[in-house]
């Protein structure tokens, strides 16, 4: 057992612990938004731990250094794309009308959307009025 093996194994264990937390969060949380919170964060850090841990483990076990750059770049790709996927999913959930949990305290997004709709309505009315004026002239 070399030091690299031990570090790698510890990292993989650390990653799987957060995987378990992530799936436990899916069961425990009340609505889709809070589930996204736990699932995204824990799954990303868990994957980072497992992937980089595998690279370091390979140094100790196989004596091969070519795993580390590959695992690192996979980890970076995952780190860049995972939050975007989460953002797309949570935004799609909101747009398709999934309700928030009843314990939710504030919803600024609804207010902003509401004010935007009001602005659009006023603009439409203004346009109609100006067209009427034009036709009258």
């Amino acid at each position, binding site marked *: 057992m070399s030091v690299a093996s031990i570090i790698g194994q510890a990292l993989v264990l650390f990653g799987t612990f957060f995987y378990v937390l*992530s799936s436990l969060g899916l069961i425990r949380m009340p609505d889709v*938004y*809070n589930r996204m919170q736990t699932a995204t964060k824990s799954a990303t*850090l868990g994957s980072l731990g497992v992937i980089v841990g595998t690279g370091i483990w390979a140094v100790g076990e196989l004596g091969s250094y070519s795993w580390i750059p590959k695992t690192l*770049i996979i980890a970076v790709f995952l780190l860049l794309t995972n939050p975007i996927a989460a953002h797309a999913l*949570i935004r799609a959930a909101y747009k398709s009308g999934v309700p*928030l949990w009843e314990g939710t305290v504030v919803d600024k*997004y609804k207010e*902003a959307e509401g004010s935007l709709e009001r602005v659009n309505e006023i603009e439409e009315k203004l346009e109609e009025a100006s067209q009427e004026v034009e036709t009258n002239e």
Partner: protein
Amino acid sequence: MGEASKISRYVHTVLVLFIIWLFLTSSLDPQEVIIGAILSLVIGALTYEVFTERGLGNLNPKRVLYFIAYIPYFLWAMVLANLDVAYRVLHPKRPIKPGIVECKTVLTNNTGKLALANSITLTPGTITLDVKGDRYFIHWIDVKDESVEGASEKITKPFEKFLKVIFE
């Protein structure tokens, strides 16, 4: 910020593609390096227009240094985020108080906004729901401050001091 010259943008794209190739093959065999260089030249010619607007300006030493300093800061914030999630999931009473808050940002660059949105998603208790101009709508699992200024202070400020230098 204006666009850099075409050559500078092209060279930057080729450099990034070539570095990714070196990491993916993880060998310095001349045959692999040459084919990687040819491929990155070709792909760079096809895609540099969508890849970058600033070209080699991205490799300004001050930006690179701030970026390197940002990595451990960001990873530490991520570990804290996960310990926070662990606490909320394992606690028998499930201490959550969710809500959607609004934040303002000082960033104007699109890449900077993307980096800030990603950083927000991966740090304690927050996930980006939508971005409109300079307004961020953020789902916060434990709302401490409902006002726009207060939320910006707690959520976006810590990252902006780095991202302002890196991307502006």
